[in-house]
């Protein structure tokens, strides 16, 4: 087995196409693609603890995928083009709160929120502006949207096809991870079960029609930001991933048909080695469970691929320039953990949405890591360290304990266990408990945060310029929406909504075709979601502290 593993890895490495780079130190010492005892594991080989690919960053650096979105679609479109000009190679769209909750910009609840935390999207007209002049057959896009994910996805497909790019050529990721919304992020609309029907529909639709599209980005990021520990982030996220696999299986899709199109999204927090061990444990656990519990045989079903974002909660509002250092260290953990793509936060994000300059520094941080430091030369450079290996093993062990709890809540079903856990406040309670434990340790000074509870000299310096989003953006967007409503074909809108209402009432129907039809007829996000709510109902969280 020992030499076999090495031989299999070596052959896979030899078959890989490599980047044009020297892969040597500054002194000229040639570096191996991977180090470690030859009786150990190798990248690109089951259980993929050391990485999903044999050659890792020697073939392809991680994608520098910067999350952006604010104001009107035209504003965000300009920021996207600036990201592409600056050398960012993937786009990631942040939507504003009304869009995340499936409300139009003229909804009474949207007051003050339009274009604030992301871009305002009401209809196909906005979606067209958002990606104008960007070649969607070449640039992959990620959309951070969950409750209305199927609706926004349909709008995205409609605009791409209207601009001449067939859906089969579209590459990217829909976040579409509704389970973590109930657990952590709390941007929910429908109750869990009808929401899961929409997830099922997008999974089935992409499996049959969009081979390059990742149907779900199973997200631990928000679980961690909401206050969980690293182990809870790891375990809850993978449990959600298993739940989606079981959901698809219930709809007649085999794990091997859907698992290769699931990607993951983890946090990179400030505890450097724990984060690296977390990514390694995640790959190992996913591979093992997909093979042993779900019978997946396609290696792509076993290989966990993930996006990383540095930890927003680790940033401080005081001495914000220090956040550049935190972000760099967190980003390095993501890279040493073998991430496939990375977003680095900007120094000003504890104060407001980032300015263009702050966002550029964040991207430059990734470029320094990729092109100056040499950390991309060797796969899993910390593999084989007793410390990192034992931390990896311990995190996996603790995650298994949590899997057992969730399985018990579902009487053997991870899907039922996760939904029952949401309904019984299991996840939300654990996350709130962990957040409070951490907060108390900050307050007691047991954990130091520079500029927050120690080393406060300089805190009075508050001259950092922050991004201003004015009320006029909201008015402009509301006017734009009124114009869309005036100029569209009302008969087509009525027909689309009627079809949607009929099909929503039949849980056997896949709603994606009706949603694409509605989007193409300029039915708004709010109108579509309200129609779906007619069948699905709305979710109200039970209040707990």
């Amino acid at each position, binding site marked *: 087995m020992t030499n076999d593993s090495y031989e299999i890895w070596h052959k896979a490495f030899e078959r890989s196409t490599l980047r044009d780079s020297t892969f040597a130190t500054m002194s000229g010492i040639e570096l191996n693609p991977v180090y470690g005892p030859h009786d150990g594991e190798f990248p690109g080989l089951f259980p993929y603890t050391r990485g999903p690919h044999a050659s890792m960053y020697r073939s392809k650096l991680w994608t520098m995928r910067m999350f952006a979105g604010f104001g009107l679609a035209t504003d965000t479109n300009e920021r996207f083009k600036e990201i592409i000009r600056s050398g960012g190679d993937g786009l990631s769209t942040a939507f504003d709160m009304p869009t995340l*909750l499936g409300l139009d910009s003229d909804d009474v*609840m949207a007051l003050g*929120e339009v274009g604030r*935390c992301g871009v305002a999207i009401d209809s196909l007209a906005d979606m067209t502006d958002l990606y104008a002049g960007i070649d969607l057959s070449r640039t992959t896009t990620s959309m951070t949207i969950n409750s209305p994910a199927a609706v926004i996805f349909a709008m995205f497909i409609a605009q791409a096809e209207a601009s001449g790019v067939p859906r089969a050529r579209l590459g990217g990721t829909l976040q579409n991870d509704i389970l973590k919304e109930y657990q952590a992020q709390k941007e929910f609309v429908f109750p869990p079960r009808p929401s899961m029907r929409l997830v099922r529909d997008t999974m089935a639709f992409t499996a049959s029609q969009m081979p390059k599209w990742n149907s779900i980005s199973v997200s631990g990021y928000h679980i961690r930001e909401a206050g969980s520990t690293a182990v809870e982030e790891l375990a809850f996220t993978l449990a959600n991933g298993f739940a989606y696999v079981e959901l698809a299986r219930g709809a007649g899709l085999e794990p091997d048909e859907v698992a290769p199109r699931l990607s993951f999204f983890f946090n990179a927090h400030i505890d450097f080695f724990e984060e690296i061990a977390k990514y390694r444990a995640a790959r190992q656990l996913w591979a093992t469970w997909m093979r042993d519990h779900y019978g997946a045989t396609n290696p792509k079903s076993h290989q966990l691929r993930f996006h990383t974002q540095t930890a927003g909660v680790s940033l*401080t509002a005081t001495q914000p320039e220090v956040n550049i250092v935190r972000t760099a260290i967190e980003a390095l953990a993501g890279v040493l953990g073998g991430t496939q793509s990375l977003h680095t936060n900007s120094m000003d994000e504890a104060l407001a949405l980032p300015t263009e300059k702050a966002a550029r520094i964040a991207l430059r941080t990734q470029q320094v890591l990729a092109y100056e430091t040499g950390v991309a030369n060797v796969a899993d450079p910390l593999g084989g360290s007793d410390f990192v290996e034992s931390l990896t093993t311990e995190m996996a062990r603790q995650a298994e304990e949590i899997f057992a709890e969730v399985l018990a809540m579902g009487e053997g079903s991870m899907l039922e266990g996760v939904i029952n856990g949401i309904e019984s406040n299991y996840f939300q309670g654990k996350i709130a408990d962990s957040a409070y434990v951490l907060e*108390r340790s900050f307050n007691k000074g047991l954990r130091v945060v520079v500029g927050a509870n120690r080393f406060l000299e300089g805190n009075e310096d508050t001259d950092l310029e922050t991004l201003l989003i004015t009320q006029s953006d909201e008015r402009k967007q509301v006017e734009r929406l009124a114009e869309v409503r005036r100029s569209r074909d009302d008969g087509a809108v009525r027909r689309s909504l009627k079809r949607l209402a009929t099909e929503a009432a039949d849980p056997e129907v896949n709603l994606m075709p009706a949603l694409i039809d509605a989007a193409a007829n300029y039915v708004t996000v709010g109108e579509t979601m309200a129609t779906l709510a007619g069948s699905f109902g709305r979710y109200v969280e039970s209040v707990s502290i």
Partner: protein
Amino acid sequence: MTIRVLVAKVGLDGHDRGIKVVARTLRDAGMEVVYTGLFQTPETVAVAAIQEDVDVVGLSMLSGAHLTLVPLVVQALRARGSDIPVVVGGIVPPSDVAVLMAAGVAGVLGPGASGDSVISTITQAATTG
């Protein structure tokens, strides 16, 4: 006398880590804490604050809507003849603090505010407000 506090999320923002930590911090400091849950409007907050007869309202904001929504909460309370003080916590740029204070807010707690400063700001608002 025990201080009673209503903590609330107005608007569409679902980030509730901060408000839960603050609620537990105040409760552990001996206060009585009522949490509204998510997605409240200025009116629902004002009505709940008056019904619950609280000494202070604490609003948790992240989404950037504070300049719009916070003054509306203050107005909704005053329109109902209530002088309950309002304290804001969350992602508030330093330049907005004066604007909020001018709108009648009793205190602003920025990101990174310690548990002690949360307790003292709420206590001060309750006793002077």
